[in-house]
């Protein structure tokens, strides 16, 4: 089992099949951009992309590459570089099955997935158009109180989730630090693909200080080393955003031709060495 756990980035990306329900984290939590490049290179199609709970350049690129059929997210945003142009264009063109969500609903639905319960209740939502357009969400009466309607959302159990983390060990345990939503996401997903900056010889679970922030190997399908694997996005305190590339993306991707130009440049890049 552990023998097969370690893969190349391309092999790892090969485990995201066409039509998969794929969960990916928000920009600050460790986005597997190198692995995403392999996905695009391979021409993955028909993804049901679940952004946990929002997406950025990764989602916008996947959408622009026609890799996404269904998009479930609370937002797509390039942060200070504005909205996601390919996302907005796909919305205008009507090529996306859009499932607008709200952040806590994505988290709660993944927690339900993690707990193996079919649904979970959530406050708020009632009376919003977000709720109105989610035919897969319902309002029920709180069984424990009178006159208390409450929203319930079905569990999200992705086929696969993919993220980038600072460190794994040789047994396949992954240190995620403060980004605990990565643990929830992996618990809820059938398969978990992780790219990491480095692999340590120490056992991360044995480390009393870190253990509470480690995703155990039992949840992890494959790990690949990808130095600076989140770039152009930041990874925790390890490296900041590559602002030039993000700005260039925001500018070029306003047009379909510009997006294609960015993609060509990006796909032809060699792996960045640390």
């Amino acid at each position, binding site marked *: 089992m552990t023998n097969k756990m370690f893969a190349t980035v391309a092999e790892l990306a090969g485990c995201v099949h066409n039509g998969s329900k794929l969960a990916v984290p928000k920009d600050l939590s460790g986005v597997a951009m190198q692995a995403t490049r392999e996905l695009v290179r391979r021409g993955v199609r028909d993804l049901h992309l679940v952004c946990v*709970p929002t997406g950025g350049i990764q989602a916008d690129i996947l959408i622009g590459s026609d890799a996404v059929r269904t998009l479930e997210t609370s*937002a797509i*945003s390039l942060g200070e570089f504005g909205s996601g142009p390919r996302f*907005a264009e796909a*919305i205008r063109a009507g090529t996306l099955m859009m499932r607008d969500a*709200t952040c806590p609903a994505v988290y709660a639905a993944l927690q339900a997935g993690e707990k193996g319960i079919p649904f979970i209740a959530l406050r708020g939502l009632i009376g919003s158009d977000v709720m109105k357009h989610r035919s897969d969400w319902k309002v029920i009466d709180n069984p424990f109180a009178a006159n208390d309607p409450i929203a319930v959302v079905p569990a999200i159990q992705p086929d696969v989730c993919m993220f980038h983390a600072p460190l794994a060990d040789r047994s396949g345990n992954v240190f995620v630090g403060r980004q605990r939503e990565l643990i929830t996401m992996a618990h809820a997903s059938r398969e978990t693909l992780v790219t990491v900056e480095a692999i340590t010889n120490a056992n991360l679970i044995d480390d009393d200080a870190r253990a509470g922030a480690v995703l155990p190997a039992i949840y992890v399908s494959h790990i690949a080393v990808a130095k600076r694997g989140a770039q152009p996005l930041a990874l925790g305190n390890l490296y900041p955003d590559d602002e030039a590339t993000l700005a260039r993306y925001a500018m070029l991707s306003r047009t379909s031709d510009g997006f294609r130009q960015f993609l060509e440049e990006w796909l032809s890049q060699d792996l960045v060495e640390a």
Partner: protein
Amino acid sequence: MSGFSRTELLVAVIARLLRGCNHVAVGASSPIPGSGALLARSLSEGQMRVSVLGSQRNNFFTNGGVELFDLAAEGRIDAFFLGGGQIDGRGNINLVGTGGYPRSEVRWPGSFGSAYMYFLVPRVILFREEHTRRVMVPQVDFVSAPGSSEGVHRPGGPFAMLTALALFYFDRERRRFRLASVHPGHSVEEVRDNTGFEFDCAAIVPETPGPDETILTRIRGPIREEIAEVYPRFAAKLAAPRDPSQPAAPPVV
């Protein structure tokens, strides 16, 4: 306006709106609310906690992204900020887009946590600098989160709305905004001309009080330094007094 910039005024007003809070949370892309919250904390003599999303120094969350939302539902967040590509007179906000749904002609990022936080945080401050009829509409095209609710558990909701022109309070009984003050250099007429909905308004509307020297010194000193951790470019502009133009991106969760 003299002696202070619009940004400094807004930061000072926000700090006043947060008085008495135990815990203020600030979402992403919110340099002015973040600065206001840090200022409020510095004035609270240790009584206030502030969580700034994206900050390392001012963010104590250890339970992943869900913690902010769990805190809100537990009643442990007293104030929060929301924006809106559109805001209407009943306090409904739209962060999704205009011109149809789901095939919107103009599509914004999305609702973020608004469809939840707006219901649960007692003192939600709507912050949107752009005060035009494009933003302040008779009725939003898409309700990311409604301004009020009936027959639903809702401890939270709109408390005030702050724009580049004025400060409004939201009257939860009447479900309408009431103009509280107009910023120096602007008038009630200008506010009315630029607002696409009706609002309540007393015969005499005071001017929004600006920051005094003590407050200005704090904003330009320690607050600027603190906010620079998350918003370095914003902080650089904050250092230069009387800069009337600031980026107008709506604050989001």
